């Protein structure tokens, strides 16, 4: 740190320039390093609002394969934006090394600084530190894999026609949330290996599949063995797409590859779905801290910091459930509140905090926050760190809605008796296992009609939604034979869906 940068004002005024962005970035990085934020290198890209809309439409990915659903997304964003119903996010940041952050050219200097602090040091350090991202995604490989996927899909379209490819992708997308390994660690993506192994894999896969479906009679001994081994799969499989990729009898090699691509994408996004509160909260906490630190060190003016505070307040605003602006809990607000409260408990604990968080009180807040960021996902993070004070501040209350009753019951509110259950309930809300229904591959009728049976284990007696029939058609299309879906509750069969339409979409 050179003394000359101390006590000198960073460039002021609303307009940014590449030079001023660099100066702010340098100043913010200096502070971030002092706080021990460990980040991937940053790549800051200035883009226009149109480009931002493009980025939106492709779920923030700098490049993706072509599919009509992205077009739909784009039109939706464009329409909302043009009508002023929606502002574009100030930034998009991509979990990649170097970490790519998009800054919109329309932003003023203050916003650019905020975004740099938020994305380039907040999100970036989260991507690098959080265990889910460390385990499930390989930040150095994703772009290469995207390039590979895009090219592969394009080649398929040329060879087999856009319609067929889109149809297969439609079906895969319908099962995207059921295409992740929740417990098993995946092999990191590597585009090179993918390509190198691709041919071999196609051949092997087909062979494997053929093995399973072999109908030529075997020697007696083997038949005996098969009789006992008749239950396939031997254990229920949670990763539907994986199962389809490996075992669907009629898929062509290129279709298996498409299934695989969608599966890999799902796996890549899986950590993001589980760390929304933590990730946004972390980034918000750090942009708040870093920007205030800039002010404390006399690098920005009062006007600048006031303008910042206004934007920040908007970001972490939580409307009440009865507000017309309410659309669920704002992950920025909740995450920011929890991290800020953790810091407060470290520095100025109350009696209550000593009772609830004896491990946190009085510790070095930077270390406590770092630990929290690294080792949790939303569900466990809330369960571990949501304090009574935050629950009071948000005025949380828990509802239970049992269809058998004609009322909705308030189970607990933000008071002494309710804190624990309330926290439990909120934590559950972020549990993907609770949000997504539990559907697994149960059985394949190998020697008979080749039908596939999925089992849905009902949670809290909640039935499946109206899409089920449609999704089953997609499963049917991928599997190629009849598909059955059984809903079980407490060991008894409640409902069965059956999709036997020979060719539901007239495509395969």
């Amino acid at each position: 740190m050179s003394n000359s940068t101390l006590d000198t004002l960073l460039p002021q005024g609303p307009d940014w320039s590449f030079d001023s962005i660099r100066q702010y970035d340098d100043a913010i990085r200096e502070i971030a390093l002092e706080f021990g934020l460990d980040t991937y290198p940053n790549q800051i890209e200035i883009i226009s609002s149109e480009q931002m809309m493009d980025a939106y439409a492709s779920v923030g990915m700098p490049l993706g394969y072509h599919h009509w659903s992205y077009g739909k997304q784009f039109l939706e964003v464009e329409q909302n934006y043009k009508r002023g119903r929606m502002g574009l996010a100030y930034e998009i940041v991509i979990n990649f090394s170097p970490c790519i952050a998009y800054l919109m050219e329309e932003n003023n200097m203050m916003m650019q600084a905020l975004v740099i602090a938020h994305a380039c040091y907040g999100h970036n350090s989260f991507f690098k530190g959080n265990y889910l991202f460390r385990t499930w995604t390989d930040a150095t490989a994703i772009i290469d894999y995207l390039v590979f996927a895009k090219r592969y899909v394009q080649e398929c379209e040329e060879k087999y026609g856009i319609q067929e490819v889109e149809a297969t992708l439609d079906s895969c997308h319908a099962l995207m949330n059921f295409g992740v390994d929740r417990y098993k660690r995946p092999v990191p993506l590597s585009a090179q290996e993918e390509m190198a192994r691709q041919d071999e894999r196609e051949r092997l896969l087909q062979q494997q599949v053929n093995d399973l479906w072999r109908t030529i009679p075997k020697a007696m001994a083997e038949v005996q063995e098969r009789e006992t081994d008749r239950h396939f799969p031997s254990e229920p499989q949670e990763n539907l797409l994986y199962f389809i990729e490996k075992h669907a009898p009629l898929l062509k090699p290129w279709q298996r590859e498409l299934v695989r691509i969608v599966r890999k994408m799902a796996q890549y996004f899986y950590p993001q779905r589980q760390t929304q509160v933590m990730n946004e909260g972390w980034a918000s906490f750090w942009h708040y801290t870093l920007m205030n630190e800039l002010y404390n060190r006399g690098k920005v003016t009062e006007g600048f910091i006031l303008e910042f505070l206004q934007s920040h307040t908007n970001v972490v605003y939580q409307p009440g459930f009865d507000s017309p602006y309410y659309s669920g809990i704002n992950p920025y607000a909740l995450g920011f509140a929890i991290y800020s409260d953790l810091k407060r408990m470290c520095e100025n604990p109350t009696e209550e905090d000593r009772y609830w968080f004896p491990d946190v009180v009085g510790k070095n807040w930077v270390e406590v926050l770092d630990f929290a960021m690294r080792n949790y996902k939303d569900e466990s993070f809330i369960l571990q760190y949501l304090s009574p004070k935050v629950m009071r501040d948000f005025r949380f209350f828990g509802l239970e809605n049992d269809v058998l009753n004609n009322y909705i019951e308030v189970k607990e509110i933000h008071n002494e008796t309710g804190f624990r259950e309330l926290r439990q309930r909120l934590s559950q809300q972020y549990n993907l296992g609770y949000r997504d229904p539990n559907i697994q591959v149960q059985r394949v009728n190998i020697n008979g009609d080749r039908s596939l049976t999925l089992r849905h284990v009902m949670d809290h007696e909640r039935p499946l939604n109206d899409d089920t029939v449609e999704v089953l058609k997609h499963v049917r299309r991928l599997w190629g034979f009849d598909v059955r879906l059984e809903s079980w509750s407490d060991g008894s069969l409640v409902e069965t869906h059956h999709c036997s339409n020979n060719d539901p979409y007239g495509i395969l």
Partner: protein
Amino acid sequence: MSYIIDRRLNGKHKSSVNRQRFLRRYRDHIRKAVEKAVNDRSIKDLDRGETITIPKRDIHEPVFGHGRGGVGSVVHPGNKEFNAGDKIPRPPQNGGGQGSGQGKASDHGEGEDEFAFQISQEEFLDCVFEDLALPNLVRKQLGDMTEFQIKHAGIVSEGTPSKLNLVRSMRNAYARRMVMSGDARRRLAELEELIQKLEQEQASGRTIDDTQLALLREKAATYQQKIDKTPFLDTYDLRYNHHVKEPQPSSKAVMFCVMDVSGSMTQETKNIAKRFFILLYLFLTRNYEKIEVVFIRHHTSAKEVTEEEFFYSRETGGTIVSSALKLMQKIIKQRYSPDQWNIYAAQASDGDNWDDDSRICQQVMEDGLIDLVQYFTYIEITPHDHQSLWYAYEKLQSAYSDRFAMRHILDVGDIYPVFRELFQRRLHEQLNA
């Protein structure tokens, strides 16, 4: 270290492929919306983009999820008066997203069950005229009075100074200089090195052969001279842009709008006719670079008028259709030679005609008018029975089915379908297209 990159110059229409895919997938919806727009819109903004709405359920991508029912659980912020154990009456259907917590259950009053988006003017017109084709689309070739277009036709070595191509000339000069003096330069460089070496030796006190040095210097001087003699720019370096006049097939079209303005034509009928004319005009603009429109209105006598007069002034009196046809023929003779112009005609009428005149109309057409035009469309806007004109034209239609078409229109809603029918791409054109 951070890298800061300006990406604003990169393409911004990355999503256009996906957008096109979406449009193609929901083509039927768009087609319907366009059809409605063509019928509903005021005439002035017929060629504009359009907002297409598609029911959300049609573009929904299904996923497994929890439906309503069972025991739902949710935490909300902003409690004011509730206490643990309170029982809130269930809001009437649709009201609560409580069922499955999270998700898209919106509390924003009405759910948004329409997906709306804009298509551009170009896309709108593409859709309006999709699968339509102008019959007998012939680009007229001309004998001697061809239209010309000046076209760039490469680079030549002779020309006027005004057409000098600087870059090419300088490039040639550079190449020539390299070729002509390259050898001399290399030798010169070698010699100079040698001279320098000798001079150094001399400076360091060693005795050297003065004559050799002088010889070398002399040699070097000759090479230098040779280099200097190579001209910087020579006449045969010069290159000129070459342009040629290319004969252009004519792509001019003239459209005749013929309308009956006798007392029996109401403003409403005229509006229907106007829509038809405008559709035709828009369609022609997509096929021809240059279009002229001639308005002919008639009652008992025909007159060429301005657009304003054509659509809005009222006349009374009887109807003699042949007067308009004769005028049209005359105008074609005077101003729009069929050699140069693609001639289209659209006639709108309520079917009224002076009894004896219909035969004359048929006569005029058969006697030559029909051979002058590329395509003649007749629309009859009437809720009543057909009269003599219709039957006279019917005979024409059977005789000249390739260039004469007629349809009956009842109200505004018929226009677009009729228009599509009239200009439906025919099989043989599809093959040629």
